[in-house]
């Protein structure tokens, strides 16, 4: 048995491999090329129970755990990083905080359809002027009787447009800085809530990344997630967990690129032999495989900690920092071993390299991960 995995995790991985091979891999190049959201795959993921892995059955989840969920992100991302991030944003950034901080009523109303996969989730923190410095939120929520009225906008929102439920951060008291931020649950059909322009991106091009625009959106107070002023705390906690998912995505991309490369070097002949016979190839592959394994260990340790209620903030940051670097290095070297063919869109490794870059940026850049890690060292 593999370190840290139970029998159900091994069977789950087997199912996910079959699912990825049959349903995800055949679409990966097409959705990248056409910048098309893989709606049909998300529907198949719902049927298989992939959309609610870590949530209890009483909330229509699968009764699984975080290790199972990151296994899913990893396996999907081996073939298609877009599909991986659709699941990651849905599970750890939207359903996750509602499960962790929501009232019983909110869980009934929002978590159940998210965990069953009937509805898709998204999360909104980033704004044009509030990236790493999330305290500069310009989206404002003003109290009005039983409602809050929200005005402002968010950018770079994953799953935007296709998601039905959004966890959004807004300033309820700008004078308090981060302590003036509050989290709200918004629904796609609320009047005044519109989806803005779609980003044209370098990678994960099938993923829908758009602007959210709030124009006098009346949100009932019952949709407030956590207490007034707790939004920043909720966002940071949510991103801690989300980072394990992104680390899993990065591991998946790297593993996928390595698999493609191993197949290629065995087939490709130069100087009358397969290029796998050259020691340069062998040494590069050995290095990459070792780094991938190290990244996976960090990633699964963070997931294990989360499942076992052990602190995982630093561990998640380390996992994401390292796994994203490994993903970029592995995909880069994968192209190098493919030579000219690797640079061509006929082979998947060029897409994988474009996809890998985002893992160093979203859900906290690598620099933010270093801030988080060092804050634990210099306490």
């Amino acid at each position, binding site marked *: 048995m593999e370190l840290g995995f139970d029998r159900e995790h091994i069977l*789950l991985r087997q199912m996910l491999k079959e699912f990825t091979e049959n349903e995800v891999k055949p679409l990966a190049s097409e959705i990248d090329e056409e910048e098309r959201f893989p709606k049909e795959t998300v529907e198949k993921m719902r049927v298989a129970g992939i959309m609610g892995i870590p949530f209890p059955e009483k909330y229509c989840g699968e009764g699984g755990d975080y290790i199972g969920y990151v296994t899913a992100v990893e396996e999907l991302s081996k073939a298609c990083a877009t599909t991986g991030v659709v699941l990651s944003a849905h599970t750890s950034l939207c359903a996750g905080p509602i499960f962790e901080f929501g009232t019983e009523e909110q869980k009934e109303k929002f978590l159940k359809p998210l965990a069953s996969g009937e509805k898709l989730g998204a999360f909104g923190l980033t704004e044009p002027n509030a990236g790493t410095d999330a305290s500069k939120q310009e989206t404002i929520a003003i109290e009005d009787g039983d409602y809050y009225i929200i005005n402002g906008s968010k950018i770079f929102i994953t799953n935007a447009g296709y998601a039905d439920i959004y966890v959004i951060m807004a300033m309820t008291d700008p004078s308090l800085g981060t302590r003036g931020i509050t989290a709200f649950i918004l629904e796609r059909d609320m009047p005044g809530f519109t989806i803005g322009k779609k980003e044209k991106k370098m990678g994960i091009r099938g993923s829908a990344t758009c602007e959210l625009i709030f124009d006098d959106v009346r949100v009932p107070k019952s949709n407030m997630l956590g207490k007034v002023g707790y939004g920043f705390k909720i966002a940071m906690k949510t991103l801690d967990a989300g980072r394990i998912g992104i680390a899993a995505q990065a591991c998946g991309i790297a593993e996928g690129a390595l698999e493609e490369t191993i197949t290629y070097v065995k087939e490709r002949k130069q100087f009358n032999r397969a290029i796998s016979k050259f020691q340069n190839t062998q040494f590069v592959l050995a290095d990459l495989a070792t780094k991938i394994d190290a990244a996976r260990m960090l990633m699964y340790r963070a997931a294990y900690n989360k499942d076992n209620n052990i602190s995982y903030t630093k561990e998640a940051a380390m996992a994401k920092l390292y796994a994203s670097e490994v993903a970029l290095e592995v995909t880069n070297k994968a192209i190098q071993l493919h030579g000219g063919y690797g640079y061509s869109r006929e082979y998947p490794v060029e897409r994988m390299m474009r996809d890998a870059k985002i893992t160093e940026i979203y859900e906290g850049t690598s620099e933010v991960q270093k801030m988080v890690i060092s804050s634990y060292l210099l306490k």
Partner: protein
Amino acid sequence: MKIVVCVKQVPNTANVKIDQQTGTMIREGVESIINPDDLGGLEAALKIKDQNNAEVIAVSMGPLQADKALRECLAMGANRAILLSDRAFAGADTWATSLVLAKAIENIKPDLIIAGRQAIDGDTAQVGPQIAEHLGVPSVAYVNEINLNMDSLIVKRMFEDGYQTIKVKTPCLITVLKEINQPRYMKVQKIYTAFRDGLVEVWDNSKLNIEQENLGLKGSPTRVKKSYTKGVKTAGKVFEVSPKEAVQIIVDKLKESYIL
């Protein structure tokens, strides 16, 4: 309605390696899977369950490691799983295997028994029909379509050059081809519950009470003289040309080989 599905855990390989000395398969280092035709049988049963609220019971004879195959059946949606495992069963040929399966099925009393056409390791296609013989129920092999009536089935039996439509009274046994359907994925929630204790029942011969001389190697009339892998032919060449050019190519080739 009660449906028994017979499943076999087999090595996942298209070209099984044979130990030249013993004439048996080398199983070491080969991943085990559910036999593909049996997976079709399970899916067929689960489809009936989806529509008619049937109870699906997966039954397998094999070593304790076959537990994994039965957990997979549970994760796909089977209600129960029974592993028939006893040292005395070891070395059984198709006759001794089908006897054990039949005795177990007698205990379950199903309305329908579904087996895969044949296993990818032995390829005999005998166990299914033999179970029906032991039980004295009708059997239809090579089924590619099932329609359920009150107390009968209408099934389509496939041949290489055509098919038969057959009405068969239940209880009965059918063997199905893997082409009958596309098996569903295991459901995540069921994967997590499939490993709970007691879900796979293990029955040994104390439950089945079969005479020792009818079990395992002793109960097997078959003796394997020799097993071998057929030599691989070299790959053919495809010419996409007009009929006229094709004739010329054929004539040239025949001349080359001094046949003409």
